[in-house]
């Protein structure tokens, strides 16, 4: 059939010409100029030492203590927020997926909406709820539990993990639920008839079957937490030294001369980490599809 189309296309001159790939041109142009070109520039600048010299001095600076610390904090935040939201999201997804279809589609819709609500307003919402004068904090205090007296503060790594879970748990629901639809009731019956209890079913059937999808979804959460900027900036104002915030302050001009290309090196560092995570994501997605 496609040969037939190609034949007709060859006959109709204009159609054939347009179909040769012209529709890909505007997309490619925007993609090259507004994506590939800037990315190429950060790679180039990170290696530049001024006056046409190239070298690794920006990377040498990147591998010193303060910036490695920033990477370590960013990775911790991404790891713990992805893990906690991943586990909670997976459990909620498991309880939701067999609910009535109305409830299910309602929750899917809510998840879609909440998963996209990051940014500055979310940070302010949590300041109003979990800040030192926040509603929830005052309420807990009245109940006799002062969380700020027990070392909790919203403007910390723990606080950020709490805030991120507000959009990460819904994101987990969105990406993990499709994996559950591959489960078969017969598996439970089969394992029951072989004498396995619920715990054994979960340990030996459910977890091995769902693990690849869980891993893939969690890696996606990891990547989203790693590159998140707005919420962290609005919430901590830089007191938690994440890599994106360090880059942000470098762009804003808090630069001494020997740091000129440090921002580019850090940006490349983020691209590398993110690419590795997304690479693993791709692999675990393939694994999950098997």
């Amino acid at each position: 059939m496609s040969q037939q189309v190609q034949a007709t296309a060859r006959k109709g001159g204009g159609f054939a010409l347009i179909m040769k790939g012209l529709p890909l041109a505007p997309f490619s142009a925007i993609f090259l100029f507004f994506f590939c070109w800037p990315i190429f520039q950060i790679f180039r600048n990170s290696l530049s030492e001024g006056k046409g010299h190239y070298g690794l001095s920006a990377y040498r600076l990147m591998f010193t203590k303060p910036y490695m610390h920033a990477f370590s904090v960013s990775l911790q935040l991404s790891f713990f927020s992805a893990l906690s939201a991943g586990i909670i999201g997976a459990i909620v997804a498991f309880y939701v997926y067999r609910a009535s279809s109305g409830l299910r589609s309602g929750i899917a819709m809510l998840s879609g909406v909440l998963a996209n609500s990051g940014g500055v307003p979310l940070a302010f919402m949590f300041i109003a709820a979990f800040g030192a004068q926040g509603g929830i904090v005052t309420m807990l205090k009245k109940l006799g539990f002062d969380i700020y007296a027990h070392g909790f503060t919203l403007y910390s790594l723990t606080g950020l993990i709490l805030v991120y879970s507000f959009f990460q748990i819904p994101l987990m629901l969105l990406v993990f639920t499709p994996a559950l639809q591959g489960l078969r009731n017969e598996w439970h019956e089969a394992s029951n008839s072989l004498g396995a209890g619920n715990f054994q079913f979960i340990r030996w059937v459910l977890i091995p079957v769902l693990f690849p999808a869980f891993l893939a979804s969690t890696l996606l959460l990891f990547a989203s937490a790693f590159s998140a900027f707005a919420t962290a900036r609005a919430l901590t104002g830089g007191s938690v030294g994440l890599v994106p915030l360090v880059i942000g302050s470098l762009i804003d001009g808090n630069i001494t001369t020997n740091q000129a290309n440090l921002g580019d090196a850090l940006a490349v560092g983020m691209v590398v980490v993110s690419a590795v995570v997304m690479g693993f994501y791709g692999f675990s997605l393939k694994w999950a599809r098997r």
Partner: protein
Amino acid sequence: MKTRALNYLRYAVLALGLMFFILPVASAIEFSLRSYGNKGHNLSNYQWIFQQDDFFTNLGISLKLAIVAALLTLITVVPAVTFLHLEGARYKRVFEFLAILPLVVPVVSLAIGAQKAMPTFIQNSQYELAFFYVVIAIPYTFQSLNVGLSSIPLKTLVEASRSLGASFTRTVLSVIIPAIRGSINSALFLAITLSFGEFTLTSLLHWETFPVWITRASQGNVLGSIALSMFSLIGAWVLLIGVQTAQNWKGIKLKKSAPEISKEEEVLV
């Protein structure tokens, strides 16, 4: 008995989950209704929002940029994906891979590159943002179109139209566009929402749009900033839920009339 226990457990988990989302929202709404000097709760912080001149200016700028980004998506991403489904199967893998890349590169990294790579005349125009918004949205718009078009026998429709002697323009206007209109709509909607909420790149390139303005406006007025945040969050939620409900409703209507469509198709073929 067991299933009933499981049911209770299910509702308990669900209720707990909902609490996690409702409590902060309710608590923040309560906070936004407080007034300075503990004079009880009122709407003064919300009145403050509308007294800000910059509120409407920045809302306008954000809307304008979002619409430009949607139009750019319409003339770049839509033709590309349509082509890949019709004739460009060879390049489909490559472009699918390319379309994921903006998700792999953190926006902060793109911003620092944009700041140095763009020529001055582009950096001087606010519309540069719309182009970057298109790029940032590509993983979502491309994927949404890609999935949408996979569910339509687009190639067969075009073959039919061509074999009936329709011209290229005619085929595009009265076969391709009507067939993929739904997918186009959701892709454009994604482009608009993502553009409207974009903060990272916009603020790092030192432009002021609605989300950036919220941060600036909040510096002098804590209660006002919370009211403003709740206003924009809830506004966005209501809008998103409204559009999705409309889409679902349309989907149900389409499903109900599905037999008729297939009859029409038979006649067409």
